[in-house]
């Protein structure tokens, strides 16, 4: 949580129009959004501040979203930050791999504004949010 009381969401999305759309939706809900296009941008932002939630695309220019998840879960400071993966590569295998690397939820692209917000709010305020160990999300928790 920031000093101004707003919760920060780190948004990692390489495609500018999409990044901007998602950013607007989240800012509209009074979240503070730090947006970046790739793994390295994300890592440098994460080293400066621990966000309340990370939303990441899987297909990124260099390292993928999977690697970002692994980085987050491997860092003692970040280990409990919930991660939302957003991708159109959403076969059961992709979703399973996202879960293996520690993602808390998987949002299939394309998604509606309402769906994105439900996922985000569930991850932030859900029963898992403030617990020391972030429980894996149940599908039934999700819209």
């Amino acid at each position: 949580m920031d000093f101004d009381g707003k919760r920060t969401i780190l948004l990692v999305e390489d495609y500018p129009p999409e990044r901007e759309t998602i950013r607007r939706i989240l800012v509209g809900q009074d979240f503070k959004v730090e947006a970046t296009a790739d793994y390295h941008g994300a890592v440098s932002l994460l080293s400066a501040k621990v966000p309340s939630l990370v939303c990441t695309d899987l297909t990124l220019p260099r390292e993928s979203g999977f690697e970002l998840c692994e980085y987050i879960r491997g860092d003692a400071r970040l280990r409990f930050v919930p991660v939302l993966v957003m991708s159109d590569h959403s076969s059961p295998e992709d979703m399973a791999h996202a879960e293996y690397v520690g993602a808390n939820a998987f949002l299939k692209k394309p998604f509606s504004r309402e769906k994105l917000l439900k996922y985000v709010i569930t991850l932030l305020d859900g029963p898992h949010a403030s617990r020391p160990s972030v429980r894996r999300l149940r599908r039934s928790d999700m819209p």
Partner: protein
Amino acid sequence: MTKQTAQHLNLIGDSIILLAASAVATKVAGRPWHWLVFLGMSMGSTFVWMLGGRVLRHYDSWNGRGMAGDVVLTGTLLGVMLGVMATLRLVVPPYAAGSQIDRFILVSMPCILWLRSTTSWLRRREIPIRQILVVGIGPLGRHTGLEIIDRNDHRRVLGHLRFADEAIHDRLPGEVLGTAADLEDILKKHVVAEVFIAGNGDSQRVEMQQCIRVLERFGIPFALPAAGFRFGRARPEYERAVADGYIHYLCVRHKPVQLAFKRLFDVGASAVALGLISPLMVTVAVLIKFTSRGGILFKQERVGRHGRPFHMLKFRSMVVNAEELKAKLMAMNEQAGPVFKMKRDPRITPIGRFIRKFSIDELPQLINVLRGEMSLVGPRPPVPSEVAKYEAWQRRRLSVRPGLTCVWQVSGRNEISFEEWMYLDMQYIDHWSLAQDFQLILKTVPVVLTGRGAS
């Protein structure tokens, strides 16, 4: 809309079209019919239509036919009506109903086909639910199950099996039916359309291979994870083949075009055959009715494709309480294995002996063929009690549409063992081709005509 309502709507819709067709035919003919003739024609044609539709299961909630099957069946029904009306034309005075009859058919046939193909509510039928089994309850197994539920495409997750290293948890949408080692038992108990093996090719390799072995023996289609690896970007070049992230395997050779021709031939040939032999069938029906107590047809529950039960039709050749007597006679069974066969079966009626000798009792199964439950050539449909005693590999017989005749029927019939018979059926399934089907039909003719080997 319930399926019953849909059926009734189908029937009412078709009847209205028939009435309209009568009216149009009258109009087109130029010379109007007497109103009594008009009434008779429309009532008669609707009656014939309903009767035919009932026999052929045209209005059943689900009858295993697609759009093409529907067109063929509607055509067949109209053909039947044409036959009836052509006969009528010989009987009724020509001034009453002349060329209108042909016009009537010409008008009503395209009307019904057109309406059936364009209005979805008329076509609404219950589509069978394909039961899917998922092996694996880890993230992959769970997401696979959820994906099938989400797609909502007439599939249902029967349940999950877990690999030995997977602990039961409460986040699974389906039920855990056992471990991967229980696959064989589960497949014997349930009708399963496809099995998704949601395992890890490294740590669960042995169990996955074991599952594949079982499934190949049963002849049940299965799917394996397409990649086994994690991709951040790469996608398969031929994405359609692995659209759901799985590679799908069949245990029978996939010949969709030949299969379509087979079905077309089945429908055409059985409709023509039924027409040609109808005098014989009527004679036999009358003989059966007047020589012994009971009905003309004998409906027996048999197991069809993918284990779906259906009623196989035969001319009744035995006394009415034959099934009860069978238990007493079981000790005198002359065929090894689960099938009951006896040369001098005391339950057979005199006329029954004759019609069995020349396989006339099997002729009503041409109706089963038209209904889509059977084919002309294919493994004989077993009775449920036989299937219960099948070994795993023998259940593969159920992976194709059962038939009137097969390799066994032309090979000397009762003189071979059950084991050999099953073996021949498997050979037929594995090496199936249209050419072989025609050969088998040709070979069946002399066997039936001479009554060789039949009991």
